[in-house]
């Protein structure tokens, strides 16, 4: 089984539009995983049925039993996250600040603090309108375990691929280079980097590529909005060549992308000439991951 992970560093380069297009082109041959768990959008295009929901528990939250608390303040002293509030001698926990380290509960002389496991989101195994399966998730706001949820989503997608004897898992990653991205990239067969010829596009591509390189993952790159700035595009091409990143496709700046999304369609279902181009790119990608 091969895992294709789409990342970009910078947000808004067209990751989700392209991943959803690949999901349509791949049809029942690919299992889809939306790993952009704190701003997941792929379900808006692929219409999953949310058939099987599973709660995601991760991390703990300290809770103070006011009946037991003597107000000594030891919890506030040891908390490194300023998550214990005190108001007229009443100690409470700020749920968004608490990291769930459990230090306060361990030192509380009144045994007034317990840690409860937090339900920080849900993930779903769905059937999508391509007839294939998709695993996707919804993280509750402010939750700090997005990396772990990404790992869950990926694991569930791999299991589905195994059960259904599918060769390819297609993963939509999140922007940035932090824990959800690290988690998305782990175990990838190919990283597809989606960028644009803007000063921020190339800057962010270089940072996320350093991470990809650190993991020793083979990489290909799509330059979206390619005609926006010829000079930055040349810099991008030179960077790809220098780093031996496989150039996969260049797409011009095209408002058809937005028009397609607004109609709830993927770009390959919307624009025939873009479809031809993206089909070519998808066959290159599938050839790359299945050639060994």
């Amino acid at each position, binding site marked *: 089984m091969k895992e294709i992970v789409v990342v970009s560093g910078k947000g*808004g380069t067209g990751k989700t539009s392209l991943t959803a297009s690949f999901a349509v082109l791949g049809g029942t041959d690919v299992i889809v995983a939306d790993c952009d768990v704190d701003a997941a959008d792929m379900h808006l295009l692929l219409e999953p049925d949310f058939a099987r929901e599973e709660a995601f528990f991760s991390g703990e939250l300290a809770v103070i039993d006011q009946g037991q608390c003597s107000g000594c303040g030891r919890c506030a002293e040891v908390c490194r996250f300023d998550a214990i509030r005190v108001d007229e001698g009443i100690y409470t926990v700020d749920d968004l600040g608490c990291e769930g380290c459990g230090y306060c509960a361990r030192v509380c002389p009144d045994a007034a603090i317990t840690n409860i496991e937090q339900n920080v989101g849900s993930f779903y195994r769905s059937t999508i309108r391509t007839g294939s399966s998709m695993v996707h998730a919804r993280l509750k706001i402010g939750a700090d375990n997005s990396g772990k949820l990404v790992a869950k989503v990926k694991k569930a997608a791999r299991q589905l691929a195994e059960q259904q004897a599918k060769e390819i898992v297609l993963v939509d990653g999140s922007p*940035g*280079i932090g*824990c959800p991205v690290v988690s998305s990239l782990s175990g990838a067969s190919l990283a597809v980097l989606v960028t644009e010829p803007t000063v*921020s596009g190339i*800057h962010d591509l270089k*940072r996320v590529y350093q991470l990809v390189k650190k993991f020793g993952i083979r990489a290909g790159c799509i330059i979206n909005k390619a005609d926006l700035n010829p000079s930055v595009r040349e810099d991008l091409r030179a960077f790809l060549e220098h780093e031996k990143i496989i150039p996969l496709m260049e797409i011009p*700046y095209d408002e058809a992308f937005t028009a397609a999304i607004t109609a709830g369609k993927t770009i390959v279902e919307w624009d025939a000439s873009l479809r031809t181009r993206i089909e070519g790119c998808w066959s290159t990608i599938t050839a790359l991951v299945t050639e060994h």
Partner: protein
Amino acid sequence: MKVAIASGKGGTGKTTLATNLASYLSRTAPVALVDMDVEEPNSALFLSGNAHHQETKSKQIPQWHAKNCTLCGNCQEVCNFNAVLVMAKRVMVFPELCHSCYVCSELCPTQSLPMTQKPMGELTHLKADNLDFVESRLLIGEEQAAPLIKQTHDYVDANFLPEMIKILDSPPGTACPMIEATKDADLVVLVTEPTPFGLHDLKLAVETVRHLGKTFGVVINRDGIGDDAVARYCEDENIKLIARIPNSRRIAEIYARGGLLIDEVPAVKDAVALVATTIQDHLKGGTR
């Protein structure tokens, strides 16, 4: 006063608004622009200034000292993040899992796990006329953005007067980095685009800032594409629609080369002026 520029979805124009707004405000009063998107900081690409200060930001990680350790196992027992592992003859620490809570270190009966500094990012402070620019940049491979964002807030609080306007360019999403960047803000400006993706992620961002109890408003970027669902949503939810930045290929081209839009596109200058007015009204204790 801290004004956070945030969004759920990435690439909606946070940096565009933050840099143009800071530049606009600096023409009449001193202002600070702080890039809190430590994973992918971009504001510096649109500004210039003279180097003022640079420092390495570190997180605290326990380091095992063998000498007095009895391998009692308490450290592993107390760590909620599986970051400490007690083996047959040694203790192993996994820095990427550590949340720097100090519990293993301070509850170690033989003081064998003193906390030591591990670099996680670089903070840079530039100055140009009326504009102070502060950026933090997470080291590649570091997974946790929130601790670096917190230290960046600390630097800002220590170096600028409370009444000075600080524009915070925040990370995308609604998870812990976004919360850490916006939770101290007096006002949050959510930038979105009028598409189903923009609307979906805006709703998540609104839910988040409401949970934080923030005063906030919305700016629609790339106005003219997509549909009017974002504007209708704002109206239904009684959310202030502060300004609209028009969609145009020319704006995208100016952005692509790292240019400031307020100098070249009057419609963007007008939109930025509306955001500036909202900030000033808020400062005077005015409209919500």
